[in-house]
């Protein structure tokens, strides 16, 4: 989905996929660039002898924190400028290693009315080139009603 495209609560159909995102192949340079951008020097992402010989890993690992960024892009691109990504959760169940291409996906699992906007629950994940899931998660996105106002900013969650 192009950045800034508007989506409305009425557009979200339970069971429907949201537009996927693809990132990769993610090389050592990608991982080093991310480590430098956030100043996190954990060697398992760029020091191959350390990752394999010291930490007994199969390869350099793609940072979980980088995978989180991709999930957030998937969600914010879909929510559009008038929506808001309220909650997101991720579990790092399996490793992704250097040179993989990742496909980040999401599917509408439920929806409900909120106070002036709608709330849409998303199941999401990240699969590698072979279709193996590594990062299952969930999110809740607030979307405006068609013809309604944008989701309020700053976001105020609905009363429980």
């Amino acid at each position, binding site marked *: 989905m192009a*950045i800034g495209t508007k989506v409305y609560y009425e557009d979200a159909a339970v069971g429907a996929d949201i537009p996927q995102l693809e990132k990769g192949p993610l090389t050592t340079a990608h991982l080093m660039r991310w480590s430098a951008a956030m100043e996190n020097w954990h*060697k398992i992402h760029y020091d191959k002898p350390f990752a394999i010989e010291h930490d007994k890993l199969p390869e350099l690992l793609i940072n979980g*924190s980088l995978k989180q960024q991709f999930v957030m892009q998937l969600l914010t691109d879909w929510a559009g400028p008038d929506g808001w*990504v309220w909650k997101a959760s991720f579990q790092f169940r399996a490793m992704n290693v250097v040179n993989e291409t990742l496909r980040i996906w999401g599917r509408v699992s439920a929806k409900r009315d909120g106070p002036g906007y709608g709330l849409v629950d998303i199941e999401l994940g990240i699969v590698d080139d072979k279709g193996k899931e590594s990062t299952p998660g969930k999110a809740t996105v607030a979307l405006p009603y068609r013809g309604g106002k944008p989701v309020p900013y700053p976001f105020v969650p609905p009363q429980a």
Partner: protein
Amino acid sequence: MSILSEAVKKYIGMQSETEIACDSVERGAVRRYAQAVMNEDPIFFADCANNERYGGPVAPPLYPTHLFRRPFGAPDPIQENARNPDFDGIVATISSQGLPEIEPLKGYALLNGGSEIEFFRYARHGETVKLTSRYADITEKETSKGPIILVITESEFRNGDGDLLIRTRRTQIRRK
């Protein structure tokens, strides 16, 4: 045999002082970050219609969680460990979100086990970011590869005015 000692358990509930990130939200740092995650949305670098309601250019949603870095004058763990073959490169101020390192777990490998995050507002360019964290729980789990320790950390990130930006609940996996 349990690897979760009483010395580790005493960290449960421990809360950090409020820490102010050593740098404000800087345009250059936001550029490097957005380019590294390959998401060059104009809301991150220019005044545009889509960030008007945020008050101008903002940082990517998770940016505040990566803003707590080694300030000028603080000890340099990379140089201190230059001759330590077991140093994994993890810088405690980043990995522990303002909380003291769990001493008995020094030398344990660290993996990111996942996060739950709530978002309330973006951090704007020029804003400062403050962090308060606590060790919410520390538990042990048996796996096919042996026991692991799960460290649950809850954090709140606020701007300089005290407005809540993000609330996180992170799981770190520690193993021998």
